[in-house]
């Protein structure tokens, strides 16, 4: 299997001409990701740690390359995710808003079609997502959550490993 792009870590060729996505995919893909996240853990417990909505947020933000759109996209996905959780609305929303913003900003400086870049971005944003969620939960909700770096890195690697073929599949959908 060969993935598109291997042209180096920088010099995005898409700068100035963002991807055009069909509106149907823009809705269907995140809904499917959320659906899988709430459904698959019923049968396989470890899928709880697979943050498909996060990966979709990162992908669309990277591809669009516009932080404002990444913010809105991340906020929307996060709020839906909050709606299906027991948390107050806004926890995942704020975190994914930040993820959308920063991933879109990163896409302006890196070649996001590179497999290694995608892997590293997947790992980084998972860690970022979990860390900020932990911070917000402690700071805003007063929850005493535990943040285990090793475990977070391990699950980050798992999400990064899933991100590479997932991004490739989403490339094919475009």
């Amino acid at each position: 299997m060969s993935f598109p792009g291997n042209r180096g870590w920088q010099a995005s060729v898409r700068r100035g001409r963002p991807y055009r996505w069909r509106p149907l995919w823009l809705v269907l893909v995140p809904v499917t990701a959320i659906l899988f996240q709430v459904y698959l853990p019923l049968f396989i417990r470890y899928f709880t740690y697979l943050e498909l909505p996060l990966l979709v947020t990162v992908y669309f933000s990277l591809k669009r390359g516009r932080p404002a759109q990444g913010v809105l996209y991340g906020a929307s996905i996060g709020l839906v995710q909050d709606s299906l959780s027991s948390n107050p609305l806004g926890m995942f929303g704020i975190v994914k808003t930040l993820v959308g913003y920063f991933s879109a900003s990163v896409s302006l400086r890196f070649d996001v079609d590179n497999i290694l870049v995608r892997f590293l971005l997947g790992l980084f944003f998972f860690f970022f997502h979990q860390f900020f969620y932990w911070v917000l939960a402690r700071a805003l909700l007063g929850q005493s959550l535990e943040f285990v770096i090793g475990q977070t890195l391990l699950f980050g690697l798992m999400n990064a490993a899933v991100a590479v073929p997932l991004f490739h599949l989403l490339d094919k959908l475009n």
Partner: protein
Amino acid sequence: MPAMDLLLSRYRNLTVLLIAVIAQLLLLAYQVRGRQEARLIRVWAVTGVMPLARLLESVRATTTGLVRDYVAVLGAREQSRRLTADVARLKLENQYLKNELATAERARALEAFQTRSPSKTIAARIIGTGSGANSKVVFVDRGSASGVARGMAVITEDGIVGKVVAAYPTASQVVLITDPTFAVGVISQNSRIHGTLKGQGHSVCMVDHVQNEEKVGIGEWFFTSGDDRVFPKGLPVGRAKIARQGKFVQEIYLVPSGLERGLEEVLVVLEGVHQAIPESPQAPQPLKLLDPPPPEVSADAEPAPARRGPETDADRLSERYRRVGSAQGHVFGEGLPGTRPPDFNLNPASPPTKAPVGAPPKP
């Protein structure tokens, strides 16, 4: 205002980010401080996602059911195949056990016959047949090491089987009674007619050298006569299946009784003892008859009419000869040829006739 426009246009992305974050922070604060929920957003999300989850679950349940049913069918097929194999194996085992049982019964019957027979015999098992399509030769598992010698008779409890034509240390070759080269002296059970039984190469043997004048019935038993010095006298050979007049001698074919039930175990006669030929191979079963019915007695029954005199010419002639003989003291059937016959011209006295009851006496 121009400064505000510049700020928004230059830091548009950052502005959007701040607005989004602050809005959500306010939303959070609203929920946390007021302990109230933004229910509308949750309703929208749940209403949008859960039907899809239900559809997904339905598809999964159906697929799982289909797969489970398919696996069950596969299991049933495998189970059916295994049961079929078990049935086939049990059939084979059953057949094997039946054969073993039949073999045991034959061995027991042979042992009983061996004990009952006055001849000294040794049991042997058929272990092979001779080569050749028309060959009626078998090999038994007893040889010279067991005392078997060439020329010894081979029998079963049903009749003779053949004779040993070659004895090897561990096996012997036996030519069967049906072999074309086989011959044995036989004698019929009822009329004691001697003949020579010869093999024909198939299941029926021929009895030769029986004259046409001799009377042999279908089904009559033949026994060994002992004339050949191989088979002891009195061993059953078989029953006549066909007995008809031939050109010079009778054509008698019989079915060897020793081969009727197949061959597995046989007896080799080491020392033969002649026996008497039985009167009948099967003793007549006593026939139980009921007592005769009592005579019917009725009030108006007429007595049986008294025997009247001769009614036919033959009766009258027989009566006349009897009176002639008694008058002259002659007994019919005892006179030798040439002796004087009775004088049939004499008129013997008529026997006194009984007067009818109630008739007046003659003066």
